[in-house]
């Protein structure tokens, strides 16, 4: 399962809801790519020689990279790490970057074998509300071109709960998606994160806030439609046809190890998490000073347990009492069983043997339930 995440922190413009680290200027592009290659050298023992099964170009907007830059990066990875020949190599892309020529080159000249397209909506007014660069037409063109080029393994993002998105439009977004016959969907409720433009604009009443009722009904429609089309909701916000689960993202929820490269990227090796500085200037300095500025956190047993509960509960695999027993011990499994009981009774959780998964009703309260199951000690 080990993977490498690359954070490409550039965007043409910032979306209102975005809380990722990304710059709306390409000024540092060249130095950044050099620094990224340098970081690989500095940290090539982090995964201790394990086979790399997934590579993920995230961001930011990785589709702003040129074919040559993508190749330099992938080649460097394959020289410094054991890159599995069957590795899943995903590129996040913005629709407006995906010209037929670019797609063709990606397909024939790079190792990218999976595309994740940031569609969000097929309607212009929603995209304007979100302050995306692209419009609905870009979105459709990009998907069609990608399919024509032969990218079968593809996913798109769709956001629901946007105030401009009526229930009817949401239904249309979903049916378009299913018509395109794409095997994977990531779909998120619009979230107003602190310190984003969206939060400020809503506070100042320049933008409408989302309505909870509508968000909930969008979610219900989504679950229903996904089921009808044979999609499995293998994580709260991720849906796929059998065999098309995102391997890279699944690793996050199954406790897999990963190396995160680029500013703000997170890494995890089972017991410690570390994250690079969220600062381009400091990051590119690593080129000259041979040192990555990062913060590190060693997880205590109870923190590891809390993360396990929090992430596993969101997935189709659920939270496994036997796993808790084996990894964390008697004390933890007792607390788990005691606390989970009332949710099973309240039909927020279903139990199958040692496996506990959220029901549809429970999915709406995943955070509250996880928090309640947490143990709090040092």
């Amino acid at each position, binding site marked *: 399962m080990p993977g490498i*995440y690359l954070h490409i922190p550039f965007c043409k413009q910032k979306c209102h809801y975005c809380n990722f680290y990304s710059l709306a200027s390409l000024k540092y592009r060249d130095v950044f790519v050099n620094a990224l290659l340098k970081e690989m050298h500095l940290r090539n023992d982090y995964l201790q020689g394990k086979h790399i099964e997934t590579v993920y170009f995230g961001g930011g907007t990785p589709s702003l990279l040129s074919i040559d830059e993508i190749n330099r990066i992938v080649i460097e990875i394959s020289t410094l790490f054991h890159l599995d020949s069957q590795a899943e190599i995903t590129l996040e892309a913005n629709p407006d970057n995906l010209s037929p020529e670019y797609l063709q080159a990606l397909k024939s000249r790079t190792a990218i074998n999976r595309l994740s397209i940031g569609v969000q909506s097929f309607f212009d007014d929603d995209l304007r509300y979100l302050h995306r660069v692209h419009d609905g037409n870009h979105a459709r063109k990009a998907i069609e071109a990608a399919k024509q080029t032969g990218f079968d393994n593809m996913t798109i993002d769709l956001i629901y709960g946007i105030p401009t998105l009526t229930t009817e439009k949401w239904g249309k977004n979903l049916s378009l998606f299913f018509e395109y016959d794409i095997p994977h969907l990531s779909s*998120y*409720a*619009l*979230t107003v994160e602190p310190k984003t433009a969206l939060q400020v604009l809503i506070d100042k009443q320049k933008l409408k806030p989302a309505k*909870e009722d509508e*968000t*909930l009904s969008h979610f219900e429609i989504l679950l229903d439609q996904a089921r009808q089309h044979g999609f499995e909701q293998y*994580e*709260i*916000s991720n849906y796929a046809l059998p065999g098309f689960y995102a391997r890279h*993202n699944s690793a*996050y*929820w199954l406790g897999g190890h*990963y190396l*995160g490269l680029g500013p*703000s*990227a*997170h*890494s*995890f090796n089972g017991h410690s*998490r570390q*994250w690079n500085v969220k600062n381009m200037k400091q990051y590119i300095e690593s080129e000259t000073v041979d040192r990555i500025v990062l913060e590190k*956190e060693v997880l205590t047993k109870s*923190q590891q347990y*809390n*993360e396990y509960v*929090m*992430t596993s509960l*969101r997935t189709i695999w659920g939270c496994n009492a036997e796993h808790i027993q084996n990894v964390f011990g008697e004390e933890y499994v007792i607390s788990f069983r005691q606390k989970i009981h009332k949710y099973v009774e309240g039909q927020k959780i279903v139990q199958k043997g040692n496996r506990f998964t959220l029901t549809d009703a429970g*999915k*709406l*309260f*995943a*955070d*509250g339930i*996880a*928090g*309640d199951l*947490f143990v*709090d000690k040092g």
Partner: protein
Amino acid sequence: MENIRNFCIIAHIDHGKSTLADRLLEFTGTVSKRDAQAQVLDDMDLERERGITIKSHAIQMDYEQDNKKYVLNLIDTPGHVDFSYEVSRSIAACEGALLVVDATQGIQAQTISNLYLAIEHDLEIIPVLNKMDLDNAMPDEVKDQIVDMLGCDEEDILEASGKTGYGVDKILETIVSQVPSPKGDPEAPLQALIFDSVFNPFRGIIAYFRIFNGEIKKGDLVKFVNTGKEYNADEIGVLRLKQEPRKVLRTGDVGYIISGIKTSKEVKVGDTITHVENPCTTIIGGFEDVKPMVFAGIYPTDADDYEELRTAIEKLQLNDASLTFEPESSLALGFGFRCGFLGLLHMEIIQERLDREFDMSVITTMPNVSYRVVTNKKETVEVHNPSGLPEQTYIDHIEEPFIRAQIITRTEYIGPLIKLCLDKRGELKNQVYLTTSRVELTVDMPLGEIVFDFYDKLKSISKGYASFDYHISGYRPAKLVKLDILLNGEPVDALSTLTHQDNAYGLGRRICVKLKDLIPRQQFDIAVQAAIGAKIIARETIKAVRKDVTAKCYGGDITRKRKLLEKQKKGKKRMRQVGNVEVPQQAFLVVLRLND
């Protein structure tokens, strides 16, 4: 003895007492450059953070003038009206007072009230015009005000700046020449006044005293007259930046005594210390016990911490005799204490000190003043808690405490300020022009009306220019009703208040609206209602949470999200379950937050 000078610094809040004290300590070399920091005497964290003095602080300085050595005992006092009793104690230990007036602000309400306290004790008053370094200082105008008030000569007013140190030399000279040295008979039996006490976790209770007659030696067997308790003077000494032990202290000296006193009740500020053998025949006129006028319940957030809370409050009381408490219980909150405070600032400070110094997380309930209930049988019962009210049928009438307030303001704000007072059920008693542009208003008002937001409103209406001082003037009958708050139909006794019947509807509505803000949404709808007796007068609904799940949970989100959930879980622990509703601490103080 003729080389001793005991004086205090008094002023309106923020006029620069503590800063001026810094300069005096610096000039006399009492505080070395290394120890120097702004307002060095404000040694509580809370004082430093808030930039205000809460407790009086005594310190001794050495000073030489005309080849003569002097010992100067300085007491810095607080300016806030809640702590005016600290000023009166300090005054009792002194022969002189520096009356500090901010040259940009002029005479304010506490300038006058503190001055009167000092005059009452025959203190020699040295007027100091402070903050002369500021461009907007108005020396001529403020000097006129001082001359009017004190009847002194304009030349007697010293100009100074606590910021630059300007005038400090002159102040010291004047203290030596004007403040009388202590009188008293060194040969007479020991007679010393306890004017303050502090609690030290390692040494127990330390009493601060001023000797009026006789002397005390280390190891002496002494008696505290009022309590009748006897002690060995294990350690005595003087108050420098740190306490410095001495073998003997004499008439006129200010010092401290450590004698293994364990409980706060044994040390009464105002008590007289004398020797067991050869005691003095008269005691020094003490002070009236400060009487708290604002009451609120204090409950441990975690019900298991009740005993710990008692210990903590007892310890706080060692430092702060004005805090009173008695056990009480609440249906909503279990066991706790009804505490009496001097005012809301005092209440806030106690709550904060419990948290900081004792790590005690507490819930403070709706504050109220002390009421007198006159029963049908014409008995008078003092009630500190609305839920302690006798049955309506036994009540003849209720009386509430009234204050007489002095408000000093620039003339342009008279109109709105009088309106504010009338809205608060005040009666204008007098209106005197201090100068052509400044007026003193005298107003009688119910204390219950000024406890909450009066001061803030006064400041905002007058753009900060009006100042305010008050004292309790008595009790008057009032048409009060008990306003209850219900959560999902259950009355929450900790949220009940007594209020004037004309205000009840408006207050009920505002409380419900604010509670809707303060109580987080839960798994079910919560009805928030206000009621008078059986009659519901306001209602709000807190809608159930319908969704509690974050959209994204990838690599970078995991730590952040875990921390967030862990934090929320901690926050939940600080909530109180009332019926099936989880109520956060701050919701119990809803009345204080109506204007937020």
